[in-house]
């Protein structure tokens, strides 16, 4: 049953990510209109609960989804099994989460100076 929980976690995280990816892509196109500056981005994100939740949940979903996808690939291509496979996937997931959380914190913490 544990294997199936992981399978469902990967499918459900994909479901969560789909709208995030679309909004994120739309936002990129919107943000580069008339040039891109750090001040403009930070002006939008700093102190914004919305963007904190948006990218915070995005990062969680990405960490789960990517770690589980790589778990499958490592199993089939690198022959990892059991504990070694799970530990490697956990490290990847936590690493992605740490980097993502750091980035989200950096752009949303604090108010406009």
């Amino acid at each position, binding site marked *: *049953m544990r*294997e*199936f929980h992981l*399978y*469902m976690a990967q*499918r459900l995280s994909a479901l969560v990510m789909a709208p995030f990816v679309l909004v994120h892509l739309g936002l990129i196109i919107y943000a580069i209109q008339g040039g891109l500056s750090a001040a403009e981005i930070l002006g939008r994100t700093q102190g914004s609960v919305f963007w904190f939740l948006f990218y915070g949940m995005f990062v969680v979903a990405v960490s789960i989804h990517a770690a589980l996808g790589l778990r499958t690939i490592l*199993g*089939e291509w690198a022959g990892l*099994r059991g504990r070694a496979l799970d530990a490697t996937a956990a490290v990847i997931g936590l690493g992605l989460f740490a980097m993502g959380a750091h980035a989200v914190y950096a752009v949303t913490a604090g108010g406009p100076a």
Partner: protein
Amino acid sequence: MTEETTIKVRVQRGTADDTPRFDRFEVPAHDSQTVLDVVSWIQQHADPGLTYRFACRVGMCGSCAMMVNGVPRWTCRTHVRKVLGDAAEIEIRPLRNLPVIKDLAADLDPFFDKWVAAEGRHHPTRTRHDPIAPVDPGSAERAQASAGIECINCAVCYAACDTVTGNPDYLGPAALQRAWTLFNDAKEADRDAILDAVTGPGGCTSCHSMGSCTAYCPNDLDPMSAIAGLKRAAARRYFRKAG
């Protein structure tokens, strides 16, 4: 084709302990000649030590499957003309994804062990003393079950599946299709046991739905869709339990 022409054939030789090597043969060509005819000719006229398997010669027993120019096929139902095409020679090897016993005979134990592991055995709803349960041939479940019952366990799909190659624990298309067939059988009593058996590591969730099994099954069966059915059934059970 005339009697004088010959076919060039490369045949894999050796046991599980040897590094495989290839022997070359020239086999007289005939009309309507099958790959199994070629293998039999070699064994009868060139090298009596050649080991291979067959029984029915008409695509019913599933014992003659081999790799022919890299493709898993029933050799008894494959015409030389079909595989030769522009190729200069035919290469015949034992079925992929399975250990070799000797020459062209693959060891099918792992394949059949996985049928058992996938809970591919019937759990009866009644005993022999009860009246026979009626089966509605028109029901949607019966249509799903009937779609897979013509499987003859030839392991062609198993040899075609790259996921089996990458993950030796993967139950594979035939065993999972069998589980789906039973799951949809009106006379099956333990669907939970089936779902438990096919949702562990190496179960239905390992399938990448690329469809080599369905593309190569000589019986035109569709294990890929059967496995998708198992995934859906397991997901439904997951939400039922959660909700």
